[in-house]
């Protein structure tokens, strides 16, 4: 059986380098299969992260041949032609814990900083409102919220964003996508603080609309448009004296 050559970045927060491996090439194998084969058969101390293996949990994202991807949903033959070496490294823009496992804390801290928590309008103390809110599915706001609600927080957009690389405080696409879904949630009452949190240098106004987030999102969401929506809302609110 032919071998598939793989280069895997190994190291920790201090630094690291690529190590080379060879795994049996199979007709059907995902990048996650390759990493698992190496960890089980050749390098038991190789650190990486996965859970569901079917594209639901968002924990197995890594950078494969220069592009952040879900490794569980990426077939080897889709990213490398026969004889080509695979290059796998941890997600960019995040601190490395070890090998392919990154520390996702900064990513999720920014969700919180962007006002990503639902603030019920009718129960500001966090209690469950007594009545169900009626939100017509065809309403514009509901559709805008629906467009971004399926994010599972894998960090692919965050690792693909140049602005995150340039400005370490920048909230990033996923956090602002989350904020935009809440801005459009008619049950939510926390928009004043939220819009303050996502404006300015670390927020939506730093986005250059390169749209790498939208291009790379494995769920085909459109964080770039969500950020544009935040910019638009803040613009009109400021112009019309609503904030």
């Amino acid at each position, binding site marked *: 059986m032919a071998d598939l050559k793989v280069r895997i970045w190994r190291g*920790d927060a201090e630094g690291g380098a690529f190590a080379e491996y060879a795994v049996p090439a199979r007709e059907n194998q995902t990048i996650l299969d390759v990493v698992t084969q190496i960890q089980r058969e050749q390098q038991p101390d190789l650190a990486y992260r996965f859970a569901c293996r079917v594209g639901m949990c968002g924990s197995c994202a890594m950078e494969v041949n*220069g592009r952040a991807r879900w490794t569980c949903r990426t077939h080897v033959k889709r990213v490398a032609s026969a004889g080509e070496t695979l290059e796998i490294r941890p997600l960019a823009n995040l601190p490395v814990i070890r090998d392919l496992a990154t520390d996702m804390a900064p990513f999720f801290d920014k969700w919180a900083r962007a006002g990503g928590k639902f603030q019920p309008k009718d129960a500001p103390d966090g209690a469950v409102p007594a009545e169900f809110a009626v939100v017509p599915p065809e309403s514009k706001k509901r559709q805008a919220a629906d467009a971004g609600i399926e994010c599972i927080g894998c960090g692919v957009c965050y690792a693909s964003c140049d602005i995150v690389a340039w400005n370490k405080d920048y909230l990033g696409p996923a956090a602002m996508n989350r904020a935009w879904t809440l801005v459009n949630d008619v049950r939510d009452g926390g928009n004043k603080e939220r819009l303050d949190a996502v404006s300015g240098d670390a927020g939506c106004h730093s986005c250059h*609309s390169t749209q790498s987030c939208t291009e790379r999102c494995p769920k085909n969401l459109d964080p770039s*448009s969500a950020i544009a929506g935040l910019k638009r809302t803040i613009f009109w609110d400021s112009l019309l004296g609503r904030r």
Partner: protein
Amino acid sequence: MPEPLADRFTPPREATLRRSGGDRRHPTYVAFVIHRVSGLLLALFLPLHFWALGQAISGEAALEGFLRWTDNALFKFAEWGLVVLLAVHLAGGLRVMALEFLGWRARQKDMVAASAGVAIAAAILFLLNVG
């Protein structure tokens, strides 16, 4: 027999570059780079532009002399480059405004292509008129 386990890997002290080249090959990223570069080049041109306008203050003869000096093929070509830069920057800017103010979500790549089309059309029209 199982394959032998590889030796425990110790990373060298000198860190390799964490940030990879990153794959940025997609139309909207290219559009961003072109918009930014054309904007910077136009900004570099502005001082020259104001200097040339300033010649008018020094008197008609000075301006006339300068204009006659620029009346050659090389300058015409540079002028065409300037028109291209302006067209590229304007079309790209309108695209970004449409994205951000009108919230046009769909068909972003088509909009990049349309912006490029407008810029190319402006470039060709200018060339036809110069000829």
